[in-house]
């Protein structure tokens, strides 16, 4: 069931309000990322600015970690790294998944179905495993690209099926009957599709890629120090978080807020896979 169908269970004004909250949240996160160097009290990775594992206080609002780094500053820098990398990955997912899927739906039937089948196979493998594999075959430097490619099969399948349904719709039949060429029809459909769904597709891709990227970083396949993202920060905090909760809780909270805003902006149903 598509998001549109499922969304019919929710009142339209509530949906609109949630979408607005999501986009506003993403906007605020973008501002925080743009001003992260200004907002953070300390540059990224600078240790010894406070005592080791100090609890949140007036001096260090989010406490400090094992190396005496200010967790608030590190969380802001980590959020910045996560958002920039997730944005790049989302672009890849939209291009390879969304755009390619839409075009594939209008290719000759056999070719389109073959591509749909191949992407269906990839979509049956957890995206996380695909991302890890792609990073293993290339390098950790390409983690955003790998995350985007891993999120692409599902985006491809969704775009393909939507555009395929469009090509069977009455308006397509009328257009063909009036002599409009297949390429013109495709161009028009893509224009309208992108105008109507680009924001939703982009937010959905952002949510999916953020989850994949932070998880691969947590597993040790993503960001490398000193450019620590939120996943890597949480992985590093794992050794101490049972007695110093703030080292993992604040980066995790920032990550959840980012994903939540992207999910709301994408109008995803509760529990729906991005």
């Amino acid at each position, binding site marked *: 069931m598509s998001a549109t169908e499922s969304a019919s269970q929710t009142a339209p004004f509530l949906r609109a309000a949630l979408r607005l909250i999501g986009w506003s949240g993403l906007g605020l996160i973008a501002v925080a990322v743009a001003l992260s160097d200004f907002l953070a009290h300390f540059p990224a990775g600078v240790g010894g600015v406070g005592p080791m594992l100090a609890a949140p206080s007036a001096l260090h609002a989010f406490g400090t970690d094992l190396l005496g780094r200010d967790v608030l500053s590190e969380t802001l820098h980590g959020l910045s790294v996560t958002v920039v990398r997730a944005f790049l990955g989302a672009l890849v997912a939209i291009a390879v998944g969304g755009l390619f899927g839409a075009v594939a739906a209008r290719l000759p039937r056999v070719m389109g179905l073959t591509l749909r089948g191949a992407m269906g196979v990839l979509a049956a493998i957890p995206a996380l495993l695909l991302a890890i*594999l792609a990073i293993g075959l290339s390098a950790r430097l390409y983690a955003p690209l790998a995350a985007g490619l891993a999120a692409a099969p599902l985006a491809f399948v969704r775009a393909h099926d939507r555009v395929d349904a469009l090509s069977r719709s009455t308006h397509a039949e009328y257009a063909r009957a009036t002599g409009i060429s297949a390429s013109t029809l495709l161009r028009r459909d893509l224009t309208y599709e992108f105008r109507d769904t680009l924001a939703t597709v982009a937010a959905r891709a952002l949510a999916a890629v953020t989850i994949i990227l932070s998880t691969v970083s947590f597993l040790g396949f993503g960001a490398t120090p000193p450019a620590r993202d939120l996943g890597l920060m949480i992985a590093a905090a794992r050794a101490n978080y049972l007695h110093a909760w703030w080292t993992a809780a604040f980066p995790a909270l920032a990550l959840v807020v980012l994903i939540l805003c992207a*999910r709301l902006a994408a109008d995803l149903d509760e*529990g729906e896979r991005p």
Partner: protein
Amino acid sequence: MLKFAARQAGRFALGLLGAMVLAAAISAIAAPRAHGLAPFLEAICLRFWAFAQLDFGRSAISGLAAIDELGLRMPATLALVLAGGGVALIVGAPLGLLFGAGPIRRAAAPLIQIVTAAPVFCAGLALAYGAAHLLHWPVSVNAPEMSATPIFSRGAQSLEFALLPVLTVGLAGAAAVQLALRRVAAQSAREAFRTGLKRMGLSALEIEWVYAVPRVIAGLLANAGEIMLTLLSAAVVTEWVFHRSGAADLFVKSVALEDWNMTALILFIFAGLAFLADFLGRVGAHALVNEDKK
């Protein structure tokens, strides 16, 4: 029914074939002298033929046959996925049916959105923190040696060790289960047949039991592939978080150490499980709804 089952079986077979080609391509990376397009394609064909004969090569790390090595690790992952699936049903089914009704759903929606926005590793760590501080359970997030105990082995402590990974996977699956059930329950509540059946004199309970319940179960079964995918994804992260040495953990290590034969086999098995769940779920759903129509 037979025609539908045959079509789904064809789909399943094609999916497995595609997964096998992908696995052969990954495994071909490990083949010697596979540099250049033509030798690589030849290596893919050779690996595909070997896969068809159930020869999955040897693990570059242990030197064991890949299938034997996986045989040692897979039961732990399957146990985790199955137990997680059970938790997913126990937690997700009532939630899905409860949230199928509008007012409750609207009240709980913000909380569910927040919970489902948490990546699995964050949820796992949060559960471990809660278990350690509130229940004073031993947790294995920082102690690999403590997790050496096989899942579900005897003893209260090993049960406590096993419970957290199962809960993590189960809660991830519960999100998918409640979503599937909520959608189908909401759809069923709007079905036109309800009014007709009421006019025929059937009680609300009879309508629910005889007509609505099979549809709801069929809706859940139709999403079995999606739920299995969620459980497998969660198992990968959970095994890493809780230091469980299963197939998913082996996959991460295999990629890190460039053991492509092992990587290929695990991907093939995981894709196969997702396709199998999808196939069985679709056929089961069709059988249920068809029975209902008769």
